[in-house]
């Protein structure tokens, strides 16, 4: 089953009418002056035929796609603000040896290599900006080993996130990182972006659950890491590197024991600011919740119209609370949270009746972005983090920024982690709105940084945010990251033009290729 193709229908609704023009920016959403900054690896004509021949020679015709019609779905991900860029070839390897061969062939032809999971990324991280070879893992999607006794698993990068928890379930185990995309996104993609999810609040992000990585380096050699190895924590540095340091071909992950008891509640408030103050109060009181999610009015109304999950339509904001643990802890934790909620003037406080309603509330929360189609032709989801106590300020600022740009904004976010996800509604056929969305998005990021926050909590930097990375870091900080890349990807062949600002990258490319 082709995971990327599987996702395409979900995307088409908000991508309708886009013109595809190979190798060139077709969208006015490109960063100004971007074209000049792209160093060209690419050579046309006979050389590409040579690439296809070499790949087919080693991997066989059914593992290589080069026909333009076959390449289209690999030209974009779930980021609505980026233009497509077609790869020169797509490879669907069956095992690590085929990945090694692909890397060597791409290197021989001087082409970049872009790894791709399910294409659910939201920052253009898998768009092959310079063409080259996209490696997709639909065939490397198995659990290689499920070690119940030691609560760990070895998986291939194309394994769908949810499938891991489904496999662990009968043994009382689960895989904790649960991005909203978990029904489609892959563990390999999750490793690339250090994916989070609502339950990070209690369990941490992907990096806290990866025990080791097997990857293919720039020479096409296999390298294995483990967090138990002595020396520098290479495993930790690979997680969140967005495919720029090598091609991950297997991942050892930690599984956790499923909690004995789980309760889910929904509290309604007048405003999103009050809801976020409640989150601070719960955390400040030392209560351990497994998830604290806020949904604002715009999003509640969209979600309920779509899913009928039981969220209170008309409320200014709802707080979705999950507590999990041992049976003995539940009553005390529930009472403590209920008291905080009441003292902040909640409009309502409702417990999920049964596991089915709990699931319905979660399904609607995780599918929130999908419900936006009912209220806007397009949306642009931003991802930023602030220290938890700055949430009310950040939300007020986001509201103001949206108003200044005459945009509607909806918020559905991981409040317990201070991780904001404003969704800016727009119609991509209106040039003014498109520009306004981009400007507002950048302003939101700047505001979050000023509050001591950062420009990505879990989606990554990808292609979209790379110019804003320099708002977070000094030239020295970026140069240090560049040293890491010098070691693992000296030719900047792995997923080029991602994460780092174009100026910095160009300079480094020149240096390292000299």
């Amino acid at each position: 089953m082709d995971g990327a193709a599987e996702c395409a229908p979900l995307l088409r609704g908000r991508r309708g009418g886009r013109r595809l023009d190979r190798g060139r920016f077709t969208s006015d959403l490109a960063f100004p002056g971007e074209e000049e900054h792209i160093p060209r690896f690419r050579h046309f004509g006979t050389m590409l035929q040579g690439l296809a021949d070499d790949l087919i020679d080693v991997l066989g015709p059914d593992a290589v796609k080069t026909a333009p019609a076959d390449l289209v779905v690999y030209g974009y991900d779930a980021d609505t603000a980026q233009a497509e860029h077609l790869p020169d070839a797509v490879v669907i390897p069956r095992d690590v040896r085929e990945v090694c061969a692909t890397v060597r062939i791409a290197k021989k032809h001087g082409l970049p290599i872009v790894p791709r999971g399910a294409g659910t990324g939201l920052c253009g991280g898998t768009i092959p900006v310079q063409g080259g070879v996209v490696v997709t893992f639909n065939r490397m999607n198995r659990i290689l080993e499920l070690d119940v006794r030691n609560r760990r698993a070895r998986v291939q990068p194309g394994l769908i996130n949810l499938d891991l928890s489904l496999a662990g379930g009968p043994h009382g185990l689960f895989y904790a990182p649960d991005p909203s995309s978990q029904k489609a996104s892959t563990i390999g993609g999750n490793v690339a972006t250090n994916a989070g999810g609502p339950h990070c609040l209690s369990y941490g992000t992907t990096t806290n659950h990866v025990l080791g990585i097997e990857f293919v380096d720039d020479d096409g050699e296999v390298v294995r890491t483990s967090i138990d190895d002595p020396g520098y924590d290479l495993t930790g540095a690979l997680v969140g590197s967005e495919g720029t340091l090598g091609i991950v071909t297997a991942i050892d992950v930690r599984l956790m024991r499923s909690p004995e008891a789980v309760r889910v509640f929904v509290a309604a408030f007048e405003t999103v600011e009050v809801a976020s103050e409640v989150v601070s109060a719960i955390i400040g009181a030392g209560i351990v919740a497994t998830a604290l999610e806020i949904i604002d009015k715009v999003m509640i109304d969209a979600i309920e119209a779509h899913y009928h999950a039981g969220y209170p339509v008309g409320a200014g904001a709802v707080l979705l609370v999950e507590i999990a643990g041992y049976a003995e802890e539940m009553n005390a934790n529930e009472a403590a949270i209920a008291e905080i909620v009441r003292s902040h003037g909640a409009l309502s406080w409702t417990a999920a009746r049964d596991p089915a309603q709990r699931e319905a509330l979660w399904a609607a929360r995780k599918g929130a972005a999908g419900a936006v189609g009912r209220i806007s032709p397009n949306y642009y989801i931003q991802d930023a983090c602030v220290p938890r106590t700055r949430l009310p300020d950040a939300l007020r600022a986001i509201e103001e920024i949206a108003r200044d740009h005459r945009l509607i904004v909806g918020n559905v976010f991981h409040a317990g982690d201070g991780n904001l996800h404003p969704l800016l509604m727009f119609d991509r056929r209106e040039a003014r709105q498109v520009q306004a969305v981009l400007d507002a998005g950048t302003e939101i990021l700047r505001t979050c940084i000023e509050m001591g926050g950062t420009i990505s909590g879990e989606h990554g930097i990808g292609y979209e945010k790379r110019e804003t990375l320099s708002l977070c870091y000094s030239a020295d900080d970026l140069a240090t990251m560049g040293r890491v890349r010098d070691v693992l990807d000296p030719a900047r062949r792995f997923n080029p033009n991602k994460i780092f600002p174009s100026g910095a990258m160009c300079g480094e490319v020149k240096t390292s290729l000299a």
Partner: protein
Amino acid sequence: MKAVVEVPFTNAGTSWAVPEDAQALAAELRRCDADGRKAVLFGGGTLQGLGNPPRACDLAISTTKLNALIEYDPRDLTIAVGAGMTLRTLANTLGKHGQFVPIDAPHPERATIGGTLAAGWIGPRRARYGRPRDYLIGTTVALADGTLSSAGGMVVKNVTGYDVGKLFVGSLGTLGALVRINLKALPAPQTNRVAIASLPEATRERALEHLSTLAVEPTCLLFVRGFSREIDGTDGLEGRLFLYYEGTQAVVDRATRELRSALGAAGVPETTILDQNAARSYQRLIDAYTSTVGQRSLTLRSHGLPGDVLVRFITIESIAREYKLSLDAIADVGTGDLIARFVSRDTETISYLAPPLVEAARERLSGLTIIAGDPAVRGSIDTWDAPPPSIGKLRALKERFDPRGTLAPGRLVGGI
């Protein structure tokens, strides 16, 4: 400047620097790098027994004055401190607000947070909470050329560029100096409890089998043999269970009931409960990991899966018998760590036996490192086992970050 901590590999030619802040520390590194002098970093000196002695140590740099509380708003559950802050000070600072960071390291009154991370030290509570590195959300490091460089931040979720700080975890000061450390904190558990039970060998396997099915899991579950001066409880000849619980009173009480019933069913006669001194008793256990018996002991650590820790324990027991050495050991059933301290009657015997002993142990157990022992005992035995498969990348990182080999040359695995 006088020696700040006693360490074996400094010598008369070693000078000491105790920089007041990160800039001053970076400047010391830059000068060493320019002059071709070799620099070795020190926190509290508690884990200097990890790693090989550096090939040279012209300047010993102490981070102990980089001990400031830099940022802490308890409502954010994040804290930024200088790398030289001791674990005790860190714990006290957080504890005042009902928070903690689950880091188990020996001698927290001297051990620094930077040193603990740089040593890659891990303890039993990671089975429940994850490793110290999992709490590291941001760093500032000083590189060999004097560059001060930051990554991460003060938020608990962050995917902005490479997580460079992770590379300094386990670096033992060979890649640069951690100078600022940002951590995420947790609400402190309401209460804690230690349970200890002597475990006759006949009941060992059955007891551990029963314990692995408990509904309420202990924070730590260890099987201890010996360490009679260091760790609470007595084991007769055959070892004892050491369990540490953290949580709400109701949960800890339920856990205790389940434990007693499981051990009773396995034929374990008696369980001792410590409530008053549980935290101290737990810290004594942690201190034991690196404790030495004068110049007569050598301590090895074997990493592996929890599922085979008892098998490895039995292997270690048989090696101790073969070499006629007495053995103190900790088998961490939660994490798979195995600590084995071999003790002889005198320095000569253990020094003579140490090289073949380590070789024999390495033949039978993988990932075996030396974590404690007097230099007289360790001699020139390599602390590290065979290098990991990623050694080529580790070497290349060292070369790129410290091209002149200024920082603690030879300290790390593979001679890095």
